[in-house]
């Protein structure tokens, strides 16, 4: 079974430029997460999708960040414009979340963003 796929793996941009990250979750997984991981820290949730609906985006900085999950499969996370402080690893995870059970999330390898 293929895991969570993310691209690109690395991205270097200048500040104020736009950037987009793509995630393809594990087939059949209805829940998709985007996390931000700063160096030396654990992942922090940015947004959670149940199918195509964003059900938790309270931590997403909406002035510059946007996300979409068309058709409830692939997802794209965009930053426009990027700031120096956005340099981090952006992780995508997916799960087949079932009511009453503990969620098991499968993470992709992440996209390492460097903003110069």
């Amino acid at each position: 079974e293929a895991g969570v796929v993310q691209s690109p793996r690395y991205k270097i941009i200048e500040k104020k430029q736009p950037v987009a990250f793509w995630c393809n979750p594990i087939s059949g997984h209805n829940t998709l997460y985007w996390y931000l991981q700063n160096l030396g820290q654990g992942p922090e949730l940015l947004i959670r999708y149940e199918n195509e609906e964003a059900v938790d985006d309270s931590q997403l900085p909406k002035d510059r960040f946007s996300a979409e999950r068309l058709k409830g499969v692939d997802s794209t996370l965009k930053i426009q414009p990027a700031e120096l402080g956005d340099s981090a690893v952006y992780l995508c995870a997916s799960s087949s979340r079932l009511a009453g059970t503990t969620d098991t999330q499968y993470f992709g390898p992440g996209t390492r963003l460097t903003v110069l």
Partner: protein
Amino acid sequence: TQLLEQSPQFLSIQEGENLTVYCNSSSVFSSLQWYRQEPGEGPVLLVTVVTGGEVKKLKRLTFQFGDARKDSSLHITAAQTGDTGLYLCAGALYSWGKLQFGAGTQVVVTP
């Protein structure tokens, strides 16, 4: 301030030694998970504990959930170089709640 505090932040040991890492909080969790993350990769789930006092073993790794469901520990017996990685604990305050991650413990096992 993070909801989950992990200690130590960094641990360097030699092969064959034992180690314990801790995950503490003042909050009660519905469940707690441990992940290992290697450089350039995403975290990989090792175990989920849900019952206070629960102990789970995964080969040389022993996980314990505190009786009050506020803390957890991970013990590795006879560490191997393949155990090197960032160990993250993550808890959910309720069954449908989002995972809150600790900052992690970086473990380095040298030959």
